[in-house]
């Protein structure tokens, strides 16, 4: 075996505790070590993905006790694919923010990179863990680093956004504790596989209540509809790369947790419909709200929420095609939205207010960035030769297969709304006159590399979607097969 899933958590923590010490020796270490760690995590996850193709799911046991007793980490095709995606994005975010704004000072850079690295670690842990309470701990790690990163810029509004996030996060964690405790008192275990196995013994009311508490809690991180009040503000106020990391990494992990709980742990009847309805509401409300936003990052945030709603709709269809489409959507959204945030934050670099009107005429001054933003916009709308097209196509065909014609219609109509607001920005970039008081800032070379590699992925997968579809199909198989998940974990004892 080339490594073990536990290294995904152990190595970053070791590095995080090491960084303050090494920073005393050479200040540049605080920037370099997180990058090395993230690169290591990427290499590790890729090699583990290759390993599990032939050897099957890895169930890693911690502290030598088999699954119902100890905590276990599961590296299955599904969680492995997500881990690879997250670590890749984390590496790109690190690359992009290597010299971003305030990071050039030593003290802020130290905090920024430690928090960023641990945010990625926490998300990876959320995806890998097979224990409910362990998931709570990782959610807290992600949330606290999120609060710190959101209020990273010393501006007046960033603290407000972070406080809003903190309030919702604190409610969420309390509710999650209640939910976990209800499950524990009924079933006497915290292991997700064993809970799934014993779930039929549980009283119906208890089941419903615990599911509600847990879904409310995870829904806060996953930006489901009534609980996503924090997201636009946080995305607006956080540094640009952090917005990308939030939408690309944290939310993905939370959606994973949501899906894992509904698909694997519970056997409730109405849960899929719940996903479908909540996803639909989220999608429609967010896309409509995005239409009238005046700030660029706020618009992107609403778009991101809408895309997550779309993924939930796809999960709510409940068939294998639906899951496939959802995973594809999550994958493409993570890549494309990161590209949009990366390039967008250079288009409105010097303004704290980040209005859309500040991008006027930037196409002339920052041609490559503007071009990349346009590419991302086209891709996320779902224009044919790009990556987003295939994911949306998969979703539509899955919906059509399940005879949900209304759903197809709604998605198509809302997609037009989406196209309108993105094309409006593109129009401003290229065909408007530059405002006198905005001055463009050239992207650094690192940022350029990060953006170009994302754009390359968008294009390559747009032309050859088969590169990833095999992987995603296996992941979808893995998620749908509940019995195998339980069997694999509990046989480890």
């Amino acid at each position, binding site marked *: 075996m080339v490594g073990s899933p536990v290294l995904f958590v152990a190595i970053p*923590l*070791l590095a995080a505790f090491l960084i303050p010490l090494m920073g005393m020796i050479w200040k540049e270490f605080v920037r370099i070590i997180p990058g090395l760690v993230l690169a290591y995590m990427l290499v590790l996850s890729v090699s583990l993905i290759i390993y599990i193709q032939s050897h099957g799911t890895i169930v890693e046991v911690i502290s030598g006790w088999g699954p*119902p007793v100890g*905590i276990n980490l599961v590296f299955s095709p599904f969680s492995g694919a997500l881990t690879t995606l997250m670590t890749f994005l984390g590496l790109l975010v690190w690359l992009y923010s290597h010299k971003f704004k305030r990071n050039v000072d030593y003290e802020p850079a130290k905090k920024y990179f430690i928090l960023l690295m641990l945010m990625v670690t926490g998300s990876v842990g959320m995806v890998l863990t097979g224990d409910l309470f362990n998931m709570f701990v990782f959610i807290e790690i992600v949330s*606290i680093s999120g609060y*710190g990163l959101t209020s990273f810029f010393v501006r007046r509004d960033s603290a407000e956004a972070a406080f809003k996030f903190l309030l919702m996060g604190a409610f969420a964690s309390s509710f999650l504790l209640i939910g976990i405790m209800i499950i524990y008192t009924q079933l006497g*275990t915290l292991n997700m596989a064993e809970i799934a196995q014993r779930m039929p013994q549980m009283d119906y009311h*208890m089941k419903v209540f615990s599911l509600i508490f847990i879904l409310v809690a995870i829904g806060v991180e996953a930006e489901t509809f009534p609980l996503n009040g924090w997201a636009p503000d946080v995305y607006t106020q956080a540094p640009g790369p952090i917005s990308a990391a939030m939408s690309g990494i944290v939310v993905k992990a939370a959606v994973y947790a949501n899906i894992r709980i509904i698909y694997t742990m519970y056997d409730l009847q109405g849960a899929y419909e719940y996903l479908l309805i909540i996803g639909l509401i989220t999608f429609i409300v967010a896309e409509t709200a995005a239409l009238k936003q005046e700030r660029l990052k706020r618009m992107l945030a609403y778009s991101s929420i809408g895309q997550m709603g779309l993924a939930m709709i796809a999960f709510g269809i409940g068939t294998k095609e639906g899951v496939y489409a959802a995973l594809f959507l999550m994958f493409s959204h993570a890549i494309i939205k990161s590209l949009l945030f990366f390039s967008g934050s250079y288009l409105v670099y010097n303004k704290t207010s980040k209005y859309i009107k500040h991008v006027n005429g930037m196409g002339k001054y920052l041609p490559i960035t503007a071009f990349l933003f346009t590419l991302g916009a086209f891709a996320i709308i779902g224009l044919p030769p790009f990556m987003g097209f295939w994911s949306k196509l998969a979703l539509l065909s899955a919906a059509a297969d399940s005879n949900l014609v209304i759903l197809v219609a709604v998605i198509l109509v809302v997609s037009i709304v989406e196209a309108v607001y993105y094309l409006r920005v593109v129009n401003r970039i290229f065909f408007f006159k530059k405002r006198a008081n905005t001055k463009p800032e050239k992207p650094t070379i690192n940022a350029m590399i990060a953006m170009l590699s994302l754009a390359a992925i968008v294009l390559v997968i747009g032309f050859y979607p088969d590169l990833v579809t095999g992987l995603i199909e296996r992941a979808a198989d893995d998620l749908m097969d509940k019995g195998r998940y339980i069997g694999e974990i509990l046989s480890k004892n």
Partner: protein
Amino acid sequence: MKKYIVLGLLAVLGYYLMSIFLLVDFGLPHFAHGVKDVYLSSSKNILKVSNAVTAIVVNFRGFDTLGEVTVLFLSATAMSGILYKKRHDIGERSILFPASSIIRSGAKMLFPSITLLGIYVFIHGHLSPGGGFQGGTIIATGFLLMLLTYQNYSVSHNRLVWVESVAGMLFVIIGLAGYFMKGSFLENVLPVGELNDLFSGGVIGIIYVLVGFKVAAELIGIIYTILHEKG
């Protein structure tokens, strides 16, 4: 108006919470084949740790503890990021005058005893209630007493960073040692000894001592950060 809506919502929530809890019998075992019995018997027979809570916190669910230590580390980091200031502001004293001489000498007397109590609590983590977090908190509270009563008392920032980093790294390294020697992270690599002896439980006692130092350093850091902040 908002108050009444909230009150109504809370009444509904309270009703449901209460009805859930009344379904759970108080003081009776709720489930037949829980992991509780496994934890109790293996902490006594295999790990030889008399405090089962410690066994759970450090060994069976030691991963949670690692995460928890990380959460404290993160919140200290995030706080100093949130209350960020330019360098020259940091040095200013935030305690205006020392306490009366009686309290000063009283605190001076009491401080080593408090630290000793903290050390006692985390050394005996596997025998009696308490452990790393509690001991670390007590030590940090003792430092807080000194900070409050003496105007000029201070701990070197670098020393705190050293203690914190080294303790945290040793925790992870012990975990990795378990991984490389026995095959799973945080597994016990030392002999376990006898039940109810001070030197028992193998690696558990060591981890709790490390956690104690780390938590103490982190909490002192948190107190420093927030104490030297002038609004």
